[in-house]
């Protein structure tokens, strides 16, 4: 099965990268879920929690305070001003 290549970067450091099945994020317009094969998209993120379901690990959340994220050909780049990895959800 196809999977997403996720990269999370904060302003001054690299946060996380890996393969994931699902990324759930909050854009300024509302919640958005990204599965493999998603249409290319650039979206503005609202501050809040982001949920990531990695392929081989347990789900976890990332606390971010604003930023944006881009999806193209199963590559998800989350650019946050500040990102803190939270506990497994």
């Amino acid at each position, binding site marked *: 099965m196809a999977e997403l290549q996720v990269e999370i*970067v904060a*302003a*001054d450091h690299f946060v996380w990268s890996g393969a994931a099945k699902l990324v759930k994020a909050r854009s300024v317009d509302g919640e958005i879920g990204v599965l493999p094969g998603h249409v290319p998209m*650039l*979206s*503005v993120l609202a501050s809040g929690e982001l949920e990531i379901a990695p392929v081989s690990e347990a789900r976890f959340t990332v606390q971010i305070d604003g930023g944006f994220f*881009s999806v193209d050909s199963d590559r998800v780049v989350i*650019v946050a001003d500040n990102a803190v990895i939270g506990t497994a959800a």
Partner: protein
Amino acid sequence: MGAQIRVYRQKIGSTKSMAKIFKAMELIAASRIGKARTRVSASLPYANAITRAVTAVASQADVEHPLTTEPAQVRRAAVLVMTSDRGLAGSYSASVLKQAEHLVELLREDGKEVKTYLVGRKAQAYFDFRSRGYERVWTGDTDSPRFETARELRDILLEDFATDYEQGGVDEIHVVYTQFKSMVTQEPTVIRLLPLEVVEDDSETPTDELLPLYEFEPSPEEVLDALLPRYIDSRLFNAQLQSAASELAARQRAMKAAGDNAGELIKKFTRLLNNARQAEITQELSEIIAGADALDS
């Protein structure tokens, strides 16, 4: 005669203690520079992601944004000068300031008014000493810049950029900083921060990788609105980090040179000291011999 020897001893003593300080500063700079370079590379993923996104928006959506539009007439320009807080870094701050002076002169020749913003106590001291005005100064974190400072710089600069000329606003913004090329070369560099030239990144995009057709949410304008300030943040922050790394590299080099010179001075003074001591002994001997001769005859 004895006085001469004492003077040389004092000089050797003080040079030795200075050499110790130079050595310590060199080592401190050397140990910090690794960290500074790591921070430069740690900020790269963010900068790359943003640049890519901005390029994508700019190339696909034909949106006019105030930050990317060239003003019809540039009447006032802002110059942001990034120097260090501390000295003892060789010509580091001096060369940035020289570059800034040059830029200001060029801008003035074009009939533009210039507003200056300063980073670092050295720039502040330079301007204060010549009693020249500046708008604002940021000090305290030039050797390990915080992202918040970049954010603050951006806020102030954007506010100025958004203001009309009549109300004291500026039409373009330049940044003078030191580019960290390698441990031995750091170059004072001028970039024009605003209006943004997004096109410049086109050449860097590999041609085999076409940017996909993005969907924008909520809209291209709003995405650009959110992106551009961050793009500026990342450029400013990158300039700060490079300046910090350059400062440390310059300090390390300056302190190494100073330490070497101190070593040479110590050698020279030791020679002179030996000379003086020998001369004293010779004189004492000849005095004694002369005295004995005088008694004999």
